[in-house]
């Protein structure tokens, strides 16, 4: 089974520094003085904003060989459905994995949004349903569903979306959603149901994934633990006669040498916690903490290209086939990882029979 590499698209902003102190790239608003200072002319005015940069990150991921982008859901950032639509025309083969919550609204409407994006991206849309914040925070934002209802709502949401996309008439009466004689007729019903990504490690999250996920994305944990989780999911899904793939959400800090990687890792870490605390990153390998306040990953893989590829390969052997990767700044790092790390992994795992097509520019 070939691995899939997804690059993260940061919805809230991107920059060079670990503490995310730098403004959103491209973003300028009218009263702000030009960063270039009075001695220089600045031709940009307010023509650009962060959307222009997001577009470039997606193009970077596409040009450097990633299979898709994960459009981050961040309540403090731009909205993920809009970003997904915005990227449809400028990308050709990237999978657009769009994170959002089942609290967005009607699942029928979400399915309709998906049908349009599928039509015009030629089936490249995927959904990553997130649980969202704890109930107290969600209630403040007009989402009254209690915590125990969050995962069941995702289940209903997916059931209804799948229903209206694939059959008519479709009726459903649940705790959160109801449809009567629904279902897309005519041409919208030909659109593929978006691939479903889920995440979470609780028993309830795993049960939900077994029932609905195409890909279940796990946090970076020791290989032993990952193997156990995957085995548990295999059993749950197997009892439902389903199979799924397993993903991993991880940040990378890869450089030509371990030394350079370590230096940059400590520099980024220092920008978050202050330079005195950076000694906690003892050496290359998996660092169990964020290197940037933006990306949301629990851990980062630090080291030379070879080392990072080696580690990713170990995850692959443990059963991970879908890597959701990120690194700041996302544009530059997409090119770096695409040029130096992905080829090592693809080489390692290419099946013998397809060797020639890879050399001719094909993909494993």
């Amino acid at each position: 089974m070939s691995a899939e590499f997804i690059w993260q698209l940061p919805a809230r902003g991107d920059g060079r520094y670990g503490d995310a102190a730098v403004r959103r790239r491209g973003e300028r608003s009218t009263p702000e003085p030009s960063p270039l200072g009075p001695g220089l002319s600045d031709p940009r005015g307010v023509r650009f904003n962060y959307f222009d940069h997001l577009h470039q990150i997606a193009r970077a991921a596409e040009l450097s060989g990633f299979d898709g982008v994960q459009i981050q859901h961040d309540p403090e950032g731009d909205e993920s459905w809009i970003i997904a639509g915005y990227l449809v025309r400028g990308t050709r083969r990237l999978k657009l994995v769009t994170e959002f919550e089942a609290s967005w609204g009607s699942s029928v409407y979400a399915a309709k949004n998906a049908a349009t994006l599928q039509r015009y991206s030629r089936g490249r849309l995927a959904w990553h349903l997130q649980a969202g914040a704890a109930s107290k925070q969600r209630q403040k934002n007009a989402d009254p569903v209690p915590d125990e209802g969050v995962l069941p709502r995702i289940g209903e949401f997916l059931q209804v979306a799948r229903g209206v996309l694939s059959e008519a008439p479709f009726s459903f009466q649940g705790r959160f959603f109801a449809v009567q004689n629904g279902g897309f007729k005519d041409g919208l019903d030909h659109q593929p149901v978006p691939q479903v990504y889920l995440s979470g490690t609780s028993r309830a999250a795993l049960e939900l994934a077994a029932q609905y996920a195409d890909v279940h994305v796990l946090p970076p944990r020791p290989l032993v633990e990952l193997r156990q989780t995957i085995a548990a999911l295999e059993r749950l899904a197997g009892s439902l006669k389903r199979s799924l793939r397993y993903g991993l959400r991880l940040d990378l800090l890869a450089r030509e040498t371990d030394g350079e990687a370590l230096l940059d890792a400590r520099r980024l870490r220092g920008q978050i916690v202050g330079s005195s605390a950076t000694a906690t990153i003892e050496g290359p390998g998996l660092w169990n903490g964020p290197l940037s306040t933006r990306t949301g990953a629990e851990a980062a893989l630090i080291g030379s290209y070879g080392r990072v590829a080696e580690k990713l390969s170990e995850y692959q052997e443990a059963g991970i086939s879908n890597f959701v990767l990120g690194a700041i700044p996302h544009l530059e790092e997409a090119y770096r990882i695409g040029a130096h790390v992905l080829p090592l992994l693809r080489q390692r795992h290419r099946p013998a029979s397809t060797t020639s097509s890879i050399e001719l520019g094909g993909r494993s």
Partner: protein
Amino acid sequence: MSIDIFWRIPTHGEPASHRSRTPNRWDLFPGYEGQGRDEVPAGYSYIDYLAEVAHAAEIAGFQGGLIPSFPMTDEPWAISSVLARETRTFRFMIPFQPGFLNPIVAARMTASLQRATGGRALYNVITGGGGPQQLWWGDSVAHDDRYTRTTEFLDVVRGVWRGGPFSYQGKFYQVEEAGLPDPLSKEDFPEIYFSGSSDAALASASKHADFYLTWLEPFAQLRDKFARVREKTTALGRPIKCAVRVDIVARPTEEEAWDEIRRGFDSLDQETVARFSGGPEAGSESVGARRQASNRPETIASYRDLIVEPNVWSGFALLRGGQTQGIVGSYEQVAERLDQLVELGTDAFILASTPHLEEAYRVGEEVLPLIKGRQSLGLRAVG
């Protein structure tokens, strides 16, 4: 004040002319799957055509366009974001029903779309015709309650827009110290075109809408309606403007324009025509749809039976779905009728004609320059 004129994006398919109901342009309209699909050039899809219509509209001088949203058509937020980067001045009028989205999410979606388009998003808020249709969408809230929900929804979107903190205790939505994040909170709030003819609708429109949007109705009826809208909204301290959606067939001569209608009408089967004279769609709670149906004759023998006043034909719904009344005539006549609508209180139009691409240029080049707009009224007021 000058008049805003919008066009329409044919999400509901594109026949070659008003003479046919069958979409033939790349044929990617869902209802007509299959016919001619093979002729779509490799790598293209219907969005490529929709993009061309949007380009034509912006080049021809329209503000932008309405992106109609029906159960069988594409989703307008998606269309807008997909076309954001390749249009320059085209404003995306997004029809949507508040019940479909969480208001905080909708605010963030809107602000992001404003950012993606450089401030070119606007709303056409629809509250829903009710009946079986509403349950298709998964919405079971009753008619008048839906307007309460619409009002509350817009209260919340507006409330969080500048960043908050905004708190709200409504029947449908409860919000506590919520607000849009910076820099989303710096965007302009979208203009709101509001559809709905009932009293409950007008009460809601008075509070939030910039434009009260109606289909074309007999001119005298429209004058009364606009007077009522203005009276009611002025009484509430917030007078709103009025806008009309109208299909048009404009040709160099009146004869040619009616000939187009005649050919379209003659291509219909008797059953369709008989059903049309019967009344509105069963089960609809829409007051607007009932008002439109009440203007129809009981038997229709010729397209002429549907001429309700000079240059106004009430059979457009037969030629393509949607509104019934439209304007038919020479370029000059169409412009004159539009000016009469301005005179009786119209501040904005959403025009449309089939095929939308070529007709955008025709109307932009031949009709729009003839419209006097407020100019003539201003002179009259002074004189």
